[in-house]
């Protein structure tokens, strides 16, 4: 597994996402309130636009989520599964912190 550093951990605001371009893929990286990191594909499968990193981060029944900024479908940050429509999911990517840097693997 190869890791690509994308930015300093401190650059991430709690409960907001950023987008990174990694090997031609758009990866949405989120820092939740408890400091944990999650990475999803940035492509919103409903609209076809690369926007998930700009959604609102929250929780649903305790599970961390992001809502698409276009039409508000909610995705689990843990599994990438859409919680509002069955059978829809976005890819999740491994993400970690190394030496204060956030790294993702695609």
């Amino acid at each position, binding site marked *: 597994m190869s890791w*690509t550093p*994308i930015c300093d951990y401190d650059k991430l605001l709690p409960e907001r996402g950023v987008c990174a371009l990694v090997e031609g893929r*758009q990866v949405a990286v989120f820092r939740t309130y408890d400091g944990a990191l999650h990475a999803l594909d940035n492509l919103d499968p409903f609209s076809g636009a690369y926007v998930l990193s700009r959604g*609102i981060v929250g929780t649903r029944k305790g599970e961390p989520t992001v809502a698409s900024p276009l039409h508000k479908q909610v995705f689990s940050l843990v599994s990438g599964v859409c919680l509002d429509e069955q059978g829809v999911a976005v890819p999740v990517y491994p993400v970690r912190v190394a030496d204060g840097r956030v790294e993702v693997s695609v």
Partner: protein
Amino acid sequence: MSRIVVVGYGPTAHRLVETLVSKGFDGRITVIGEEPRPAYDRVHLTSYLSGTSAEDLTYDVPEGAVTKLSTRVTGIDRDAKHVVTGDGDVEPYDVLVLATGSAPFVPPVPGAEHAFVYRTIEDLDAIKVAAKDAAEGVVVGGGLLGLEAADALRALGLKAHIVEMSPWLMPRQVDEGGGAVLKQHIEDLGLSVHAGAGVKEIVADDQGQVTGLLKPDGTLVDAQVVVFSAGIRPRDELARSSGLEVGERGGIVVDSGMLTSDPSIYAVGECALAGGMIYGLVGPCNTMAEVAVDRIMGGSATFEGADMSTKLKLLGVEVAQFGAMDGALDVTYMDPVGGVYKKLFISDDAKTLLGGICVGDASPYTSLRPFVGKALPAAPSDLLFSGAGASLDLPDEAQVCSCNNVCAGDVRTAIADKGVTDVPGIKACTRAGTTCGSCVPMLKQLLEKSGVEVSKALCEHFTYSRAELFDIVRVRKITTFSQLITEHGQGRGCDICKPAVASILASLHNGHVLEGERAALQDTNDAFLANMQKNGTYSVVPRIPGGEITPEKLIVIGEVARDFGLYTKITGGQRIDLFGARVDQLPEIWRRLVEAGFESGHAYGKALRTVKSCVGSTWCRYGVQDSVGLAIALELRYRGLRSPHKLKSAVSGCARECAEARSKDFGIIATEKGWNLYVAGNGGFKPRHADLLAGDLSTEELIRTIDRFLMFYIRTADRLQRTSTWLESLEGGLDYLREVIMEDSLGICADLDAQMEHHTATYADEWAATLDDPEKLSRFVSFVNAPGVPDPSIVFEQERGQIKPVMAR
């Protein structure tokens, strides 16, 4: 059945035609009316004097109906089946409906020709003119309409007298005890009541100018304006001359299906004599119209008489009567200090409620009217004294809305089967509450008791409504979402509660929306201070207050659009929208705009958008006020104000209303004397004409009233509730709103004023502040690991010389 002709175009004719159309009648409908305009709302006629225009009161002509206005029908040829109009035209019919209404009764006393009546818009115009040079006015007749007319005279600045033949006022609604309490109320307001008095003569000078009213006892009441409101007489002259059967004391005789003595001719409304009665209230007349339509279309509906119950607020006094006005037993509650009189009539076995009378407090009307003819729901003294009854369970067949004949069961069906969860939903579904509105509290009660859990919880994270959260944040001085959700919620929020709380914090504190933790609460539009479009790009709308812009600024917008390759479009709010900006272009675009003096237009926010204007008196030859100047002042005052939903406004410089102010959350229309303020209008999915809140305001009064209106809305509305639905669901409606923000009935106006003062004092342009803050600016990148790289997924093609987005699939 192909041709229906309706003679008369009042509210009953309107209801008839409207019902025909809605039931799919596919023949030709012709309505012939002698007034110069289609039917209008007579229940709210008096509001014409306080600024509501004739157009506002006038009902829309139902689609498909042909109207002939200012036209009188002079004859009916029943053999040939046609009517003849005053200008000699012939209109053939298969079915004829007479809805000729009534005329005010003017007693044959000397000088009566100098007096006015109170029925049409033209009557009110004439009274208005006469009142200009008058100091005192008399209304003859102390019934419902008489008191309304007296209130109108008072509003026109006259000292008003009421002369009533009976020993007390409103003899058809209240008994002697109630009349005494009513008299006290009315005299406290400065009106004079002459009960038990008749009219001997209307005295006028040689020029025909009225000087007073002479009572039979020889005393003279000084007055320059006299208005007769002493009952109505059915307009049956056409029926009479056509040989139709009429009643001994007037009225066109109809059977229970509203059919006259001619099987092709129906009569409805105040001209019809149904079961020996003439009905002058809107509810029964509407029912007659609906029965006639049902019959015309082959049904078998019948009109079985009607509930003449009344509830009204006249001169600030609530008066109500329901059911019978006597009974074997009665129980009375009387409080002369508080001016309250309530009486219930009960059967001799003390078990059945027969009726009631209320003055000063009409709450028993709401709670007890549905129980008329049924077992008393509690001991009468409890019902009258403790205010019990407010929570009684209504039987299904109990009528809740008498104007539209809707029963409790109909409302329950709408709630249970159609999933209605609020009062506006019930109104749309059943028509209940859409005419006089007096049953709205009852509708609310039915909703609350329906068992349908109408959760006010914002989302799974907060059990509170937005209004409750607003109060919590305000009273406990909470400044962060984290504090609020830790102390009053659960979890970490979502796309529903976070923007709602962000909006509350912004309304109350007015700091930068991207400051600190608040950045994470915003929808993407607020987070990037621009509007996200379908391909993930943003559009940019600089503020153009009032729609006024210099050529230099227009050129800057053009240059920015050209240099960044943006699609440009003029918006409906008199601004210019620039589309297709990538997130990383936004700061550069805004640097150019801010340098040229532009500010954020908040097109992305639940906030004030624009105050549109017409060109106004500066240029327009019709304008009476400077609408552009006012629009700019208002837009600058309220710019940046965050609210439960977007806010739109407009200012028109004259009654032609070119700015379409009445489709706005708050709209202003210039008058000769100042400004009329309309509130709670809406275009969009469910259009709504704004209601007149106050008329002829000075600019200072206007701004103070708008300040309070906006702040009260911001405080109490639900999330994403526009002012239109907010007002519809506000208990007490427009009157209540007026009491709160114009009469300070809740004692909160100073607070609302202070809140708005804080807003205007602390406003700062969000974009200018963002450009000055490297940390905030650093978020405006497509890729955090490649800040200079544009998003390769964003692709455009050309259309009509500009870009348009291409979606990958």
